[in-house]
Structures are given as structure tokens and as C-alpha cells.
């Protein structure tokens, strides 16, 4: 079915759009089926056609070249890996960043996820998207004047005073308060409430601007960027090997999946085949980490709902997993363990017995959790029917991971774009139908059971052998590569443009929480203030992964 759709799309692109450049690509190497170069005035009709064929906008980014900026759109479908890439060139003639001379049409009226992607490109590259409803800076303070991901940006100049920039940020904040005061006088009962950035229930430094009428939320807008750590610019000056620690610090709660993503990208691009022992260790590590990530989420989510006890139980179980992971990696949190074609060092002798000892105890704990939490009447009343995300909305926002599976779509990259050992393993993709907070809890809960199933299948069968390849290239061949894997939160994609040198030319990280968080704009209206934290908790966000 989807193959016909894809063929049709290709034919449609070739017939109707007549792209200037068109190239078939290898899914196993470049991660995409084909790429096409459209003209700026065509991209909106391309996007409309893709949406009509049930594609979602997976990633949107830009690459800075000497003569032009290249906008890179990745579209994908929920049934299997059908990723395609469409590009648009924005000529650089007659413009400097910030003067508004570089234009491109907006897709925000077609794909809702494009809203944030375009705002990010606007602030990082200085491209103006015509017709964008709210083209302001997304990650950096509004008073910034820099466009950091342009190649002409050479860092903050010497003597640039932080005091000065802080002053500007404070002025921004004052201006916001003035606006707020004005809006208060206009309508008597509506008011604005700031949730965060310092709030125990926002799981980090997220700020949500709530527009309220009494206790009821009229609309809410997440404001992000309070944890922006310039990963993408940083990676451009590091060697490929030096990017490993960044992978551990993007999503520190489920860092193994990010290690996996980077390893997959390299292995696809360089044609490396890791030894079987490595594959086994990697899947074991990733699944253990997935459980620990879900446990942390469960503890804090229930803490947000007012249940204090599960927090201690979940952390108790999580510590046991961390002990096992620490045994092999030496780290508790920000893992930096995988390598191109291998892992950093071999697992110790006690590794497999420790996992075997952990499994039965944790099975019993899961049964306890189920009895205590899911059938708890207070929990049910607080979560059922709350924060509903429709399938249409999920498609438009590019929501992935458990949040999407709670809406009844069994889209999991471990099944749909199989990598590593996953094709050989027996596991289910848990889904739910209601797409509310309760469903998201239930899907994540059963995912822990499935991960445990995967672990128990593998733990007895770790083959002996090498854990490293003898020779690994230090650089990627010239070209563009895309790779994705299923992290604990959804689809984690990486788009790499390599110029053949020792460090990346452009590294785009497509993080799942970024799109997932964007979708709460559709979930919040109609909630009560106390439900906002339940909705926020249910999508399982990690802020440094969103802000990058």
C-alpha cells in the first residue's frame, strides 16, 4: 500500500513539480528514498500533497552554503520507513543576515510542526518565512542579534559583555509584563499566568504562558530555550569522535538511544558492520535505559499528580538498573559508551547475572505498580479524558513515540525502520485508543514490560567475540546522511552534512520532545490549571533535548 503511495508521490513530484535536481538514494546508506529540489514557490503545494498522502513533516532545517541557504524538508509516513527529502534554495544575493532579504514561504499553515522549525531557522540563519504568524526567536533571548548557525558567525567577539546581554534580557522581561498588564485591562476576567521556568512540575526549565479564564485554560503557549546549550554549533567545531559526549547530554534520561542513533548514522554512512556481541550489548543497554527512563518519568509524573510514594519506589528500581549500567559504562547518567562499529569497552563478567537477578524482582514490582496506580480511582479521575490529542493533530505536529502510540498508531522505529537486532526479536508495540493522559501512561507502562521481554530474550545469548572493529575511519565521506532510531520519547533523527573533513559541516538533531511538546498547544485548551501539569507530565519531555 505505502509503496504505491511512494511511487505515486515520486511520479507526482517528477510530473508536476519537475524538480531541478532529483536523485534516488539508498535507504540503507543515506536514510532517505529520494531527494528532490523544488523551487520556493512550489514548496507549499508539495507540502499540501504530502499531507494529503498522510506524510508528516519529520524534520526541517537549513544548511548554509557560500552562495545560498538550503532548506531541507524531511517527510515520512507512519507505515514503515518512507522518508523522502525535499530541498529548497534560498539565494543569498543582496542580503546580510538580519536585514530580512532572505525569504522563503512558510509551511506553518499546512503542518503545525513547521511553526517552531521555521522560528528556529529564522533565529539561527536569519531567513524570513513569509506569512508566518509569529516569527520571533525561539531558543535565544528576543534581544539577541546573532545568527549562530551561519558560517559567517565566528563566535561572540572578545569583550562582548554578558552584563550587556543580561540587561537586554531583563528589558525583554519587563516589556512582557507591560503587555500582560495591558491585556488585563482589556478583558476583565481573562488573565495570563506564567508556569515556569522555575516550577517543579515542568521537568526542567520550561515556561508555559497560560491564557486563563478563571481556572480554565483558554490557550497555552510553551516558551522554550531556557536550556539552550548550542549542541549543533559545538559539534561543527568538534571531531566526529568528540561528538560522543554531546549524545550523552542531549537526553540524559535515555542517553543510550542517542548513542545508538549516532552509532547507526556512522555505520550506515561508513558501511561498518558491528560484531554480534556488540549488537547484543547495545540492545540490552538501550532497553535497560528505556526502562530506567520510563521509571523516572512514571515517578515524576505521579509526583506531579500528587502521589508521593511511587516516586520513591520508581527511583529504587531505577537505581538497580543504574547499578547494572554503571557496571559496564562507569556512568550513572550521561552515557558515552557506544563507538563507531563497537562499544567503548567490554561488559564485565557480572553483567549478565546482575540482569538475570534484576528481572524477576522487577516483574513483581510492575504488577504492584499496576495494582496500586492504574486501578486507583483518584488516578483514573485525574487522567481519563484529559489532554486528548487527535490523530490529525498528531500528524500535523509530527508527534512520535509513546504519545503517538497512545493515539492508536503503532508507529515504532524498532519495527518500522528496523535496526540492530530488533527484526529478530519478539516484542509487541503497545498502543491505546483514547489518546488521553491515561492512555499515555498505560502505553509507557506496557513498554516497560516489552523492554523487559526483549532483555530476557537476549541476556542468555550474548555471544563471545570482539567488541570493537580494528579500523574505523576518522571522517565521513562527502555527502548527506540521515539516520533515525526510536528513543524513549520517540523518533530521534540526525541529519549530517559532511564535507569530508574531520568535523561535521552541519549536524541537525531532530529530537522527539521538540515536536511532542509543540503539540500541547492543541491539548491544553479547556484544561484546568491543575491539569496542565498532568498534560505536561504525560508527554514526557526532557528540556535540554528540546532546546539542544
Amino acid at each position: 500500500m505505502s509503496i504505491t503511495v511512494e511511487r505515486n508521490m515520486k511520479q507526482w513530484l517528477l510530473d508536476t513539480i519537475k524538480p531541478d535536481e532529483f536523485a534516488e538514494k539508498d535507504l540503507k546508506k543515506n536514510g532517505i528514498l529520494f531527494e528532490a529540489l523544488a523551487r520556493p514557490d512550489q514548496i507549499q503545494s508539495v507540502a499540501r500533497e504530502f499531507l494529503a498522502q498522510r506524510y508528516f513533516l519529520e524534520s526541517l532545517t537549513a544548511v548554509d552554503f557560500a552562495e545560498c541557504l538550503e532548506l531541507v524538508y524531511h517527510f515520512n509516513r507512519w507505515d514503515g520507513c518512507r522518508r523522502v527529502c525535499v530541498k529548497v534554495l534560498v539565494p543569498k544575493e543582496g542580503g546580510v543576515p538580519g536585514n530580512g532579504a532572505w525569504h522563503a514561504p512558510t509551511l506553518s499553515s499546512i503542518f503545525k510542526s513547521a511553526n517552531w522549525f521555521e522560528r528556529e531557522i529564522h533565529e539561527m540563519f536569519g531567513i524570513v518565512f513569509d506569512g508566518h504568524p509569529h516569527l520571533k526567536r525561539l531558543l535565544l533571548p528576543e534581544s539577541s542579534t546573532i545568527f549562530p548557525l551561519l558560517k559567517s558567525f565566528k563566535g561572540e567577539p572578545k569583550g562582548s559583555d554578558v552584563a550587556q546581554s543580561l540587561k537586554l534580557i531583563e528589558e525583554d522581561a519587563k516589556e512582557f509584563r507591560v503587555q500582560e498588564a495591558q491585556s488585563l485591562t482589556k478583558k476583565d476576567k481573562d488573565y495570563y499566568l506564567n508556569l515556569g521556568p522555575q516550577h517543579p512540575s515542568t521537568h526542567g526549565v520550561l515556561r508555559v504562558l497560560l491564557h486563563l479564564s478563571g481556572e480554565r485554560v483558554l490557550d497555552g503557549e510553551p516558551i522554550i530555550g531556557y536550556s539552550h546549550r548550542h549542541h549543533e554549533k559545538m559539534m561543527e567545531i568538534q571531531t566526529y569522535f568528540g561528538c560522543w559526549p554531546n549524545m550523552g547530554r542531549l537526553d540524559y534520561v535515555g542517553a543510550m538511544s542517542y548513542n545508538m542513533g549516532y552509532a547507526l548514522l556512522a555505520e550506515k554512512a561508513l558501511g561498518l558492520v558491528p560484531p554480534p556481541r556488540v549488537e547484543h550489548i547495545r540492545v540490552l543497554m538501550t532497553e535497560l535505559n528505556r526502562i530506567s527512563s520510563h521509571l523516572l518519568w512514571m515517578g515524576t509524573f505521579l509526583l506531579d499528580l500528587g502521589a508521593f510514594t511511587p516516586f520513591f519506589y520508581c527511583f529504587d528500581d531505577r537505581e538497580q538498573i543504574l547499578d547494572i549500567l554503571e557496571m559496564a559504562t562507569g556512568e550513572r547518567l550521561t552515557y558515552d559508551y557506544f563507538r563507531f562499529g563497537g562499544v567503548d569497552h567490554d561488559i564485565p563478567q557480572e553483567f549478565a547475572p546482575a540482569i538475570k537477578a534484576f528481572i524477576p524482582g522487577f516483574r513483581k514490582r510492575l504488577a504492584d505498580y499496576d495494582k496500586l496506580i492504574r486501578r486507583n480511582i483518584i488516578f483514573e479521575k485525574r487522567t481519563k479524558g484529559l489532554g486528548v490529542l487527535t490523530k490529525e493533530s498528531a500528524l500535523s505536529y509530527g508527534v512520535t513515540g509513546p504519545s503517538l502510540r497512545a493515539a492508536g498508531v503503532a508507529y515504532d522505529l524498532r519495527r518500522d525502520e528496523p535496526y540492530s537486532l530488533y527484526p529478530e526479536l519478539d516484542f509487541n508495540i503497545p498502543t491505546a485508543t483514547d489518546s488521553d493522559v491515561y492512555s499515555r501512561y498505560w502505553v509507557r507502562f506496557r513498554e516497560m514490560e516489552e523492554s523487559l521481554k526483549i532483555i530476557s530474550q537476549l541476556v542468555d545469548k550474548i555471544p563471545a567475540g570482539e567488541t570493537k572493529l580494528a579500523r574505523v575511519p576518522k571522517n565521513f565521506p562527502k555527502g548527506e546522511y540521515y539516520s533515525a532510531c526510536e528513543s524513549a520519547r520517540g523518533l530521534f533523527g540526525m541529519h549530517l552534512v559532511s564535507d569530508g573533513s574531520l568535523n561535521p559541516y552541519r549536524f541537525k538533531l531532530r529530537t522527539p520532545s521538540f515536536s511532542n511538546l509543540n503539540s500541547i498547544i492543541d491539548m491544553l485548551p479547556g484544561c484546568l490549571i491543575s491539569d496542565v501539569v498532568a498534560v505536561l507530565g504525560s508527554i514526557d519531555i526532557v528540556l535540554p533535548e528540546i532546546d539542544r
Partner: protein
Amino acid sequence: MEINQDPHYLNTQTPSPDMVRFFKVEDVFNMARANSLWPLTFGLACCAIELMAGGAARFDMDRFGFGVFRPSPRQSDLMIVAGTISRKMVPCIKTLYDQMPSPKYVIALGGCATAGGPFKYPGQYGILEGIDKIIPVNVYIPGCPPRPEALIAGILELQKQIKEGRTQGVMSPAAVNDSQDARPAEYKNAMSRAEFRKQV
């Protein structure tokens, strides 16, 4: 209890050294302060997860009397800066610090809060290289992220400092002076797209 009305009663008694001790009032206060530190529930990045782990089942910071995390700065006297300080977040941290009642103490948890951590490089544009650029810090804890044991050791060290009167709770904020180095020529220049496409 009957109170002795003799004004020279205290002088006539010879108290054993174990029974009565004389303190400065400030010392008594410091002892109370040290043993009831109320940290602010405040996490910025990765280190916050270890902070949570420190408060949870295994490490149980309550054992030492500093497990009472308060979400409001008005109720807390210890700020544990756990994570990378982005410039967008700086005014918020400053506001939180100013809202805390005196005497107040600050712990910089991890490399980022201490000096920028792994995200520090010459010419970076996004982070503040160390929280001590804007507020005074009492204890620095190294690590990326530090283990919960290190956090506990750090807070115990702070308790010791407070008890011995070595640290002052109230200090005037340090002046912000953080000038960046110029970027060395490691940043690449833009390459030509036409040539790139030709060779791919």
C-alpha cells in the same frame, strides 16, 4: 520548679563543665541553620536528575536534615544550582536568588554551574560560564554529573562551614564580569553548494 531569688545564686554555684556551656548567640543560630537547610526545588539540566536521585530512596538526603525541598524561593535558604546556565535563564536565577530570605547559601553542582562544563569553549554564545559570575557560591561540587554521594558530601561541607562560622549567608552579589575570548580560526567558512553537489 521553684526559682531561686538570690541574685548571686549563679556565682555561688560551680557548674560542672559538661552541664553548662556558653555560646555566642550567633553560634547557636548557625547550628540551627546548618541542621535545617531547606533547598530550593530547582533543576536546570542533567545534574537535576542526580539531585532528584539524592533525595529519593537510596541516597535519602533526609538523613542529614536537608531533604526538605521547597518549590518556593521564599521558603528556602539553599540554592543548589544543578545544571547548565543558559543566558536566557540568568535573569530568572538572579530573581530566584533575590527572593530567597537571608541568610542564604548557594551550591554549584557540577561542571556547568561551576565553570561552564563541557559547553565552554572560546566564543560560545549560549551559556554563562559559572554561576559565580552572578551570585556568590559557597561550595563547588565537581563532576559531570556529580554522583549523589558527591552532592551529599558537598552539603555536609556546607554544614561544616556554617557551623564553624566560616561562611556568611548574606553577601552582596558579585559583579558580572565575563568577557569572551575571540574565536580561533576553527570555525569553517561556508563551502560552495555547486562544488559540494558535483563531488557527492
